[in-house]
């Protein structure tokens, strides 16, 4: 069902949703950028159209809304562990096609990989609804088209945000009552089919063990500082560490948490007794690259990377993941010619 809303009608739609949904979208954090007098775009609670920042890409992805940076798995107090309740209000997330696809990539890990579904992920994820933002053009650092993540069929409501009007396509009936007095107008969302940035992704099978030992990774040993920003900003990075936080004088109470972890960060592979793997940062860059464009694809039949480009936006060392993938492809091409 299509609708055409004025700005006021859109605000009224958001207003009506508040009782049943928390609405999140990209919003401005004034002066919170990396440098003085710069802003940061992050995911926040949205109550009015003016809260939304649609002209710049968000620094963080929406994943922390349903995969929190730190989450209590259970509390213990001598006896049986108790699992904390969560707020069961539904969550509507305003996101772009790449991020909609990124959630599909997270779903594969948390809901399909291994013999069990992830209890904590699933109970939040079930509450998530997709409010798709149409991309009129990509941002300069996007390469979603190269990753086949520019289009999606997954949305509950899709929006085209114009200057004075908002066009709406409602796919999930649960949202029809919130728009029942709004003017109808047929609307079909469009996707972009070209980015300024293009990435050539190797086919599965083209990456061989020779490319693991290639010198191209050495550059990243010199440049990467293992800060993990690329991991935390990535909408598809799903790794976490489980840790205990004891409480009380006898330390017999406490919580077990899980917290985001990143393959670029020191300690990711450390085992008790001191054994560790991938000590050089080049090896970590290779591990991440392979995971995003090769390993995950072998397992699930699709790229994990969705080409949102946030890793390139946030790297303090100006390392470009897009360029890394292209360099790898160049090496493969070069090998073929030899």
């Amino acid at each position: 069902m299509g609708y055409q809303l004025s700005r006021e009608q859109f605000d009224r739609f958001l207003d009506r949703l508040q009782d049943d949904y928390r609405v999140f979208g990209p919003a401005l954090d004034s002066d919170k950028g990396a440098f003085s007098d710069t802003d940061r775009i992050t995911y926040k609670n949205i109550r009015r159209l003016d809260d939304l920042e649609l002209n710049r890409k968000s620094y963080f992805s929406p994943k922390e809304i349903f995969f929190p940076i730190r989450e209590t798995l259970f509390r213990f107090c001598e006896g049986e562990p108790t699992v904390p309740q969560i707020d069961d209000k539904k969550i509507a997330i305003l996101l772009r096609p790449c991020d909609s696809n990124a959630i599909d990539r997270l779903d594969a890990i948390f809901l399909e990989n291994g013999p069990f579904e992830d209890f904590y992920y699933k109970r939040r994820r079930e509450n998530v609804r997709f409010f798709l933002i149409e991309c009129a053009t990509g941002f300069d650092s996007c390469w979603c088209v190269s990753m086949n993540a520019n289009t999606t069929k997954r949305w509950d409501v899709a929006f085209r945000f114009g200057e004075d009007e908002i066009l709406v396509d409602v796919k999930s009936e649960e949202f029809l009552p919130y728009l029942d007095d709004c003017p109808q107008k047929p609307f079909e969302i469009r996707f972009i089919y070209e980015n300024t940035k293009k990435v050539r992704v190797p086919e599965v099978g083209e990456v061989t063990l020779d490319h693991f030992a290639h010198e191209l990774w050495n550059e990243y040993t010199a440049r990467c500082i293992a800060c993990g920003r690329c991991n935390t900003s990535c909408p598809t990075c799903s790794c976490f560490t489980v840790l205990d936080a004891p409480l009380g004088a006898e330390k017999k109470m406490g919580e077990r948490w899980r917290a985001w972890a990143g393959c670029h960060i020191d300690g990711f592979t450390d085992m008790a007794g001191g054994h560790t793997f991938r000590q050089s940062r080049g090896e970590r860059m290779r591990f991440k690259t392979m995971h995003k464009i090769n390993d995950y694809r072998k397992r699930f039949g699709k790229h994990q990377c969705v080409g949102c480009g946030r890793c390139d936006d946030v790297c303090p060392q100006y390392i470009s993941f897009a360029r890394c993938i292209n360099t790898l492809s160049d090496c493969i091409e070069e090998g073929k010619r030899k």
Partner: protein
Amino acid sequence: MINPFLPSKMKILDIIPETEIDQTFVLAGRKPVKPGQFFQLSVPGAGEAPVSVSDFEDDKLFVTIRKVGRLTNALFALAPGDYIFARGPYGNGFDYRDYVDSDLKVIAGGTGLAPVKKVIKHFIANKSIASLEVLLGFKTPQDILYRREVRAWVDAGLATLTVDKAGPDWSGNTGLITGYLKNLDLSNLENCKFIVVGPPIMIKFITIELLLLQVPEENIWVSLERKMSCGLGKCGHCKIGETYVCLEGPAFRFARARRLLD
């Protein structure tokens, strides 16, 4: 909805000291388990870690633990009658059927013996293989695990035991385990199967030697160790390539393991 992160309480029935820093905990519990599988053991407040099961019988599980960190310090403070928390078992473990009718050689270094101890015991009791030989290496005589059983295996002519270094009161073999590969009877090489467990450096050199002896990669099994936070294929720590050690391992045929590059 099942919450696979929730551990259950297991009572400690007994604690067997093995070395100065290793103890075997005997836990009350009847769980279907295979040798080489592991449990996520925890002491609330101290943390959780993967520990492979070293033995099991009717209502008992045995885990051998080395005191090397925060969790294991907390485990070593416990006594029989106390409880630990556990979830699992996880991983594939060793499948007895893979070795039927073979001349099986088990090569274990240090705590690597723990995940294969039950394999050795099984094939001593069960005659489904053609023959069994065991090669064991430890750093020093003080580091030898399961002394009573190891002594019995050596006395029965089943096992060769060596230590890297020893004082004058040690009358047994010394030197690296790789040096004792020649003691194994490899006369019927096509029928030999090998299980190699131990520190990564030991696995590396033993497998190099075995390949030089023309042992096919498919006839060698190894067990890998990795950091794991979940055991469920979610946390990502144990992933190598497209393989999750916690799901598809920790036991691998070497044909696959050698392609797992960090």
